[in-house]
Each structure stands twice: as structure tokens, then as C-alpha cells.
């Protein structure tokens, strides 16, 4: 869905203003939101699905909230979406909490997105000219608006990864090749962009088509 979270290329937000010696958290409640988000990540589906909950926030809310306020909004919506309060076993407190040890090993080992199933053979090779397809998916996508319809060059193959557009909607992981694609700044932003500058972005195979000529 085309919403305000897809901000690459906007120029309306003013200067970047870093805070000197910024603490990791600014308030105690932010610590709890981070911890709750990580500790409940297994309850609310894959990361792509949880990202989409943020993207569906009202645009005004999205822009006026601080980062952890958005995360708080996501947790509240996820609890509601999953209907946790209404589930009998949950209401009786019979859930099984993830153990500290298990969660520590998740943090240590991670949750790789690479897959040995699905489409393993890459259609494109390094150096191939490709074009990002002009798609406007109604749901979750990682195909940013600013590359749609633009041509670039395959810079690197990342192997086969689960596909966010279907994973986010419980339509299967649809694993497929993931590429790093290089676009010149001028192809993306026009002739005023510096001639040598480049932008690299990761794009799944279904986002790409061959660019001939």
C-alpha cells in the first residue's frame, strides 16, 4: 500500500537533527515497549506482518507519533487483531510464556529470512540490466515507490529469501531470489543529481523485469 511510511525521496521534513549523547531510551515506558515487542514477536506472526500493522496506522498518527509510540500502537492493535483477550485459555492465564533462555537464543541466533525451499535458481546475474516493475500492491510490499518503473543493474545476489508481500498476509513465504540492485542517482532523481552517485536497494525477483536495449 502506498502510504507515508514509504518516505524515500520526500524533501519536506527539514534538517536531520541528531541529539548529542542520545540515550538508548528516553523514558522507562519505551524500555517496556521494546521488550514487549521482542518478547511477543512469536505471537503476532512474521516480521513482515508486524511491519504491515505499522504501515496501516492512520498517516497522521504515523507522522505525529514518536517511534516507540508507533510500536505501542502496533502492540495494542496486534493484541486486538489476534483477539487474545477473548481466547478462553488466555483469559484464564494458561498461556505459555516464552522462557528467558529461549528468547535469549532467538536474539543470539536470529530468525534468518533465507530459505532452501522455493525458487532457488536466479533469473538474473550480476551486471544484468533490470527494471523495477510498476506495481501498486494493496497490501504490504518492500518495493519502494521511488524505484518503480526505473532501470538499474544487478549488483549482487543475496540468495533465496522469503517474500514479504505474501508472507505478511499469510499467503505463504513464496521464497525467491533477492538481489541488490544499483540505480544511478540520475535515473532515480533526474539530471540535477550528481553524475557519479548511486543508490543500492534490495529487490525480490517478482519486483523485477528484464530491461532490454
Amino acid at each position: 500500500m502506498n502510504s507515508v511510511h514509504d518516505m524515500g525521496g520526500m524533501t519536506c521534513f527539514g534538517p536531520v537533527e541528531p541529539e548529542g549523547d542520545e540515550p538508548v531510551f528516553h523514558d522507562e515506558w519505551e524500555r517496556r515497549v521494546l521488550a514487549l515487542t521482542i518478547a511477543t514477536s512469536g505471537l503476532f506472526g512474521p516480521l513482515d506482518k508486524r511491519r504491515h500493522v505499522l504501515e496501516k496506522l492512520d498517516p497522521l498518527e504515523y507522522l505525529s507519533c514518536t517511534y516507540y509510540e508507533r510500536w505501542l500502537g502496533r502492540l495494542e492493535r496486534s493484541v486486538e487483531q489476534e483477539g487474545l483477550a477473548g481466547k478462553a485459555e488466555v483469559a484464564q492465564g494458561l498461556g505459555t510464556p516464552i522462557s528467558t533462555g529461549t528468547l535469549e537464543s532467538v536474539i543470539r541466533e536470529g530468525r534468518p529470512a533465507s530459505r532452501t525451499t522455493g525458487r532457488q535458481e536466479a533469473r538474473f546475474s550480476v551486471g544484468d540490466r533490470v527494471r523495477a516493475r510498476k506495481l501498486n500492491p494493496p497490501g504490504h510490499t518492500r518495493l519502494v515507490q521511488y524505484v518503480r518503473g526505473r532501470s538499474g543493474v544487478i549488483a549482487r545476489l543475496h540468495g533465496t529469501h522469503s517474500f514479504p508481500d505474501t508472507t505478511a498476509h499469510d499467503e505463504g513465504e513464496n521464497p525467491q531470489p533477492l538481489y541488490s540492485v544499483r540505480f544511478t542517482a540520475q535515473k532515480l532523481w533526474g539530471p540535477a543529481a550528481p553524475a557519479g552517485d548511486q543508490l543500492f536497494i534490495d529487490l525480490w525477483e517478482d519486483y523485477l523485469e528484464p530491461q532490454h536495449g
Partner: protein
Amino acid sequence: MADQRHHEASHNPYLEKRRTEVETSALEERVRRLEEALTSWGLVSKETLDRVVEIYENDLGPLNGAKVIARAWVDESYRKRLLEDATEAIRELGFGGLQGEHMVVVENTLTVHNVVCCTLCSCYPWPVLGLPPTWYKDPPYRSRIAIDPRSVLREFGLEFEPAVEVRVWDSSSEIRYLVLPERPEGTEDFDEESLAKLVTRDSMIGVGKAGEP
């Protein structure tokens, strides 16, 4: 505590995320209710949440990434491994896991300057850099770094000749990027530990140079 956050008032309306005491109390109350519900339903435990906070506030941070960079500066074969398979090379030093499952390291040289962003959300290599600073997650950086990286870099005090190629890496997939900054001049006699102290978080995102505060 509530007032300390606000000692540096922002000039940027989009960054003016100051909250009154009343608003902060309301947020605290929402988080308290959420944590209370999830714990009473037996889905998370307080102990686990405390441990997650500890990990992200104390265990993970740019000191990890600095060790990786310093090793690459003193050990040529490590540098090569890092550029070829960053995930494995970083694992060698004991770092990896959530939000660092698939790492790519990009190297700054006299003619190439790399800078990392996530225009869609806040993707960032947690195991080597910790949680991202607020500016990295806020609209001004996320939007303009894609279209006009040189103006953003200038705000961080970095200016490059037109001949230097600026490369932006937009983290749209689960690949996480880390910049290998240039080793500062005059550090030939430094050992690995002293070198690590010169590696800043900003230099590993690409908005700073190593050896500068």
C-alpha cells in the same frame, strides 16, 4: 526525568516530539495495561522483559561493530573475509543474531563513500550497532538520504568532492549493512584496541568518519 528529555528543544516541527507530563502519564498507563494483560495471560514474564531491556541497553551497541572494524584494519585476511561474507566474519568475533542474520559490509575508500539507511522503516544491524538513534528512524533522514544524500551528509559535517562517488544503501530486505570506514591517518602504530576506540557509530552508518568525535 520527564524534563531532562526536553532540554534541547528542536527547531524542526516534525521533530518536536515533546510530550507533556499528562501525555507521558497516559503513555505509561497504556504500556502498564498492556504489560499487565500480557503477563496475566501468561504470555510473557516480567523477568524475560527485564532481560530483553538489559541486552539491548547494555550488551549490544556500537562497541561490537568497532571491534569488527578495528580487526579489519589490522588483519588483511579478515578484511577480505568481512567483505566477502560479513555474516560469517562477524560471527568469528562472537556477534550476530536478531536483525543481523544477513550482513553485508561496504568499504569506504578515497573515491567511494557509503551511507546506510532504511527509507521504509528502521532496519539497522542491531548485533553490531545496537538499537538505532532516533534521527535514523525519523522522517528527515529516512526521506532525504535517498534523494539528496550529500545535503544530509553536510548536516553531519561531511563534504565530498564531486569526483567521490556517494553510494546510498537502502535496507529494504533482511540484509543489514555496515560501513567499513577509512582508517584514520597517523594511526599506523595503534593496536587493535586503540583503533576500536576511534570507530564511532556514525562512521559505521556512513554519516561520520572514524577518528572524529
